[in-house]
């Protein structure tokens, strides 16, 4: 043990008080945290939950018998028109709408 000099008792007392105070604080804090967790778990066990608390997801329901119906194969899609053709057809329809017969005003 090293020599703490003539004032060793003051040094030991200072460190002793610190260890006691910090130890008590740590114990009280951790114990309070544990107590609150236990109480909350107990309430939740009784079915008392917060409205915002997420409900546990129900277990997935497995089919009792395997389905014998064959699944329909997905319908084949028509190949999409190239953009240039699409634009041309759109222009065509818009010009058809603007024909003079279509824009005739009643006389």
């Amino acid at each position: 043990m090293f020599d703490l000099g003539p004032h060793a008792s003051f040094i030991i007392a200072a460190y002793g008080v610190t260890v006691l105070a910090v130890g008590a604080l740590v114990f009280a804090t951790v114990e309070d945290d544990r107590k609150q967790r236990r109480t909350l778990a107990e309430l939740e066990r009784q079915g008392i939950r917060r409205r915002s608390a997420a409900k546990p997801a129900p277990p997935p329901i497995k089919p009792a018998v395997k389905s014998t119906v064959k699944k329909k194969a997905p319908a084949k899609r028509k190949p999409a028109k190239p953009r240039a053709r699409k634009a041309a057809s759109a222009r065509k329809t818009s010009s058809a709408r603007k024909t003079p017969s279509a824009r005739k005003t009643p006389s």
Partner: protein
Amino acid sequence: MISLANPTRFLSLVDTVVPWLSGLVVILLGTGLYLSFFVAPPDYQQGETVRIMFIHVPAAWLAMFGYTVIALAALGTLIWRHPLADVAAKTAAPIGATFAFIALVTGSLWGKPMWGTYWVWDARLTSMLVLFLLYLGLIALWQAIEEPGRAGRAAAILALVGAINIPIIKFSVDWWNTLHQPASVFRAGGPTIDPALLTPLFVMAAGFTALFVLLHLIAMRAEILRRRVRALQQTQVARAALAEA
């Protein structure tokens, strides 16, 4: 940062951080104590009693830090009325009070062999005692008012009024002629302490700070859970009353 203001997200963060922070506290305090007792040399004037500095100074810093946290959280309570701000303020008070108590007692035990007295009513010591009493007052106020929202607002006002004491503690040694020594670490001309003593002091201060943050996070988690328990118990009582009616 804003997402952490959500109590549920805050709780999951605390669950992640606490084990790592606990390890850091053990490493820092272990290293700090080793440096304080086995590496730091005795002071040329104070001898071995200088080792009290390694706990007294960090405790005093954290006592002031704790009150600063409370004052900032009080602003959060009064301006934004955020429940986490109130939780932060309420849970910082016992931790800050403990550090203020340690600073007062260790300072007194250091003062007797160095000054020849345990206590003197000088500005630094008295303002530190006032800080400790402010902490006790805040804790008593939170205990006295049952409804957390009301208690939080009342305590926030008291905390902001008491915040004036923090600069008084810091500058008391400059403003008044005190028996307590002037600032020797955070001062304009740099620290006046030898690096052989300054390094253990900083390591211990880092350890104390990590301990403060760790305990604060755990206490905040406990307080959030306490409020949830309270709300659920009120629901339970209301349901029971409805069933009877």
